[in-house]
C-alpha cells in the first residue's frame, strides 16, 4: 500500500518529528502554504488542526490538501465536536480518497471555549469510539453500521493523550484503551514537566502500549509572556511547572521567545532519552516559523525529504 510516509518513518525506528499548523481564519490559502513551506524538510508530517480551541478555521481536510500541495505530508485532525457519526465517517473516507494518508482522532475542545460558545456540542461519538470506527472501516472494510465499503481506506490512525491530567494513574491505561481501539500513534499534550512525563512513560511501558502504539511527546514554545499566561490559564489541560515559568520571566522581554526555544530544545533532548519515546510533536501556535530553529538547537538536522505530491500519495 502506498500512503503514509509517517507510518514508514515510525516503523523504521528513526526519531520522528511532527509539527502542527492551524489553518487560517479565512479563505486565503496563502498563509497555510507559507507555514507549510517553512516546515518542509524539517518534519516528517504536519498536523492540520480541526477548529482548534473550538474556533472556526478553514477545514482541516482543505488545510491537509494545501499542506500536501506545499510538499509536506499532512495529518488530518478530526474532532468529535462538530460532526455526528455519519459526517465523521464520510469525511474520513473522503480524506483517504483525496490522498490524505494520516488521521488524528480526538474528542475536541468544548464549544464553550471558542468563538461560537453557543454552538451545539455534538459529541455523538467519543474519541475511543471514533478510533474504533476508523479501524473497523480500514481493517474490516465496513462502516459502524456493518455496511460494506467499496474500497477500504488505509490511513495511519493517531490519537492524543494528556499524561498530566487527573485521574492520576489512569492516563496510561486510557492510552492503552485507545491503542486497543485502533490508535497506532499518539501525540501527547505539551510536555513541560519531563519528570512527570517520564513517570507516565514508565506506566505506558509497563502496560506494553509502546509496543503497538508509537509515542510522540508533545513539545512546544511560547512566543511571549502573554502567550505563556494564556497557556497557563486559558488552555485546558496544559501544566507548566514553576521552574519553566521562572526561567521565562527572568529574561528581558525581547528574549522570551529565545529562552522558550532553548527550553523546548532541552526538553526534546531529555524526552528523546526516555525509553519508548518514538519522536516529538512540536506545537508553536502562531510561531511555526520558529520550529526549524528549535529542531536545529535540539540537534535534529534538516531532512533531505523529497517533496511529496498529492498524486504520489494516492493509493488505488
Amino acid at each position, binding site marked *: 500500500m502506498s500512503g503514509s510516509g509517517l507510518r514508514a518513518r515510525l516503523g523504521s525506528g528513526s526519531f520522528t518529528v511532527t509539527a502542527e499548523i492551524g489553518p487560517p481564519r479565512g479563505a486565503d490559502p496563502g498563509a497555510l502554504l507559507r507555514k507549510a513551506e517553512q516546515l518542509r524538510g524539517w518534519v516528517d508530517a504536519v498536523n492540520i488542526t480541526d477548529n482548534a480551541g473550538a474556533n472556526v478555521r478553514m477545514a482541516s481536510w482543505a488545510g491537509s490538501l494545501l499542506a500536501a500541495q506545499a510538499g509536506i505530508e499532512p495529518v488530518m485532525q478530526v474532532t468529535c465536536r462538530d460532526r455526528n457519526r455519519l459526517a465523521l465517517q464520510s469525511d474520513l473516507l473522503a480524506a483517504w480518497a483525496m490522498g490524505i494518508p494520516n488521521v488524528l482522532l480526538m474528542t475536541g475542545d468544548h464549544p464553550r471555549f471558542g468563538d461560537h460558545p453557543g454552538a451545539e456540542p455534538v459529541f455523538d461519538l467519543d474519541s475511543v469510539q471514533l478510533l474504533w470506527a476508523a479501524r473497523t472501516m480500514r481493517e474490516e472494510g465496513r462502516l459502524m453500521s456493518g455496511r460494506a465499503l467499496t474500497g477500504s481506506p488505509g490511513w495511519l490512525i493517531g490519537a492524543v493523550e494528556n499524561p498530566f491530567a487527573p485521574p492520576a494513574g*489512569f492516563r496510561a491505561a486510557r492510552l492503552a484503551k485507545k491503542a486497543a481501539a485502533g490508535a497506532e500513534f499518539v501525540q501527547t*499534550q505539551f510536555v513541560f514537566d519531563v519528570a512527570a512525563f517520564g513517570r507516565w512513560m514508565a506506566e505506558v511501558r509497563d502496560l506494553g502500549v509502546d509496543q503497538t502504539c508509537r509515542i510522540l511527546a508533545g513539545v512546544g514554545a511560547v512566543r511571549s509572556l502573554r502567550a505563556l499566561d494564556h497557556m497557563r490559564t486559558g488552555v*485546558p489541560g496544559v501544566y507548566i511547572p514553576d521552574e519553566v515559568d521562572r526561567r521565562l520571566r527572568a529574561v528581558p522581554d525581547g528574549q522570551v521567545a529565545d529562552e522558550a526555544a532553548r527550553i523546548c530544545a532541552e526538553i526534546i533532548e531529555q524526552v528523546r532519552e526516555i525509553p519508548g519515546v518514538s519522536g516529538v510533536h512540536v506545537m508553536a501556535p502562531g510561531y511555526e516559523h520558529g520550529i526549524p530553529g528549535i529542531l536545529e538547537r535540539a540537534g535534529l538536522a534538516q531532512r533531505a525529504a523529497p517533496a511529496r505530491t498529492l498524486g504520489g500519495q494516492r493509493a488505488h
Partner: protein
Amino acid sequence: MLAPNAAYRWLAGALTRSPAAYRAFTATERAAKGAAFGCRMCGQCTLPVTGYACPETCPKKLRNGPCGGVGADGSCEVFPDTRCVWVVAHERAQREGRVADLLLFQRPVDQRRAGRSAWVSYWSGEDEDLWAPAAGTGAAPAPQARRPARKAMK
C-alpha cells in the same frame, strides 16, 4: 440489586406489553435516577461499570474515560465548579477494586433509546453488548442495525 432475575424479566415483559404501565414506570425511573445520579435518560445505562458516575452528565458525554482538559484539582474544564465525572468514577473504582471496569469499551449511544427505560431494557437482555472488553474492541463490533428500536409507545 437490580440484576436480572425471573421476577424482573417478568416485570419487564409486563411493562413492555402495557404502554400506560411502561410510561408510569419510566417516570419513576427518571425521578429516582435523576435525583440519585443526575440521570439524563439516555436509555442505555453504564452506571454499574462507571462507579455510578453518569457519563451523560459529562459536558462531552464521554463514555470511555476523561478528556484531556481535566483541571489539576480534578475539576471539569467546562464547568470548573464541578468535579470531572471520570475523576469521580476512577476514585470509586479504585476504592472498590474495579478499575478494570473503566477499561471496557463502551459502544456508541443509540440515540433512538433516549427517554426509554434502561431498567426494562436491562432486564429484557437488550443491554448485553453495550460494552465489550477493550482488547476485543475491533474484533467484534456490534452492528448498530442489530438492535432496532421497538415501536414507540404512545
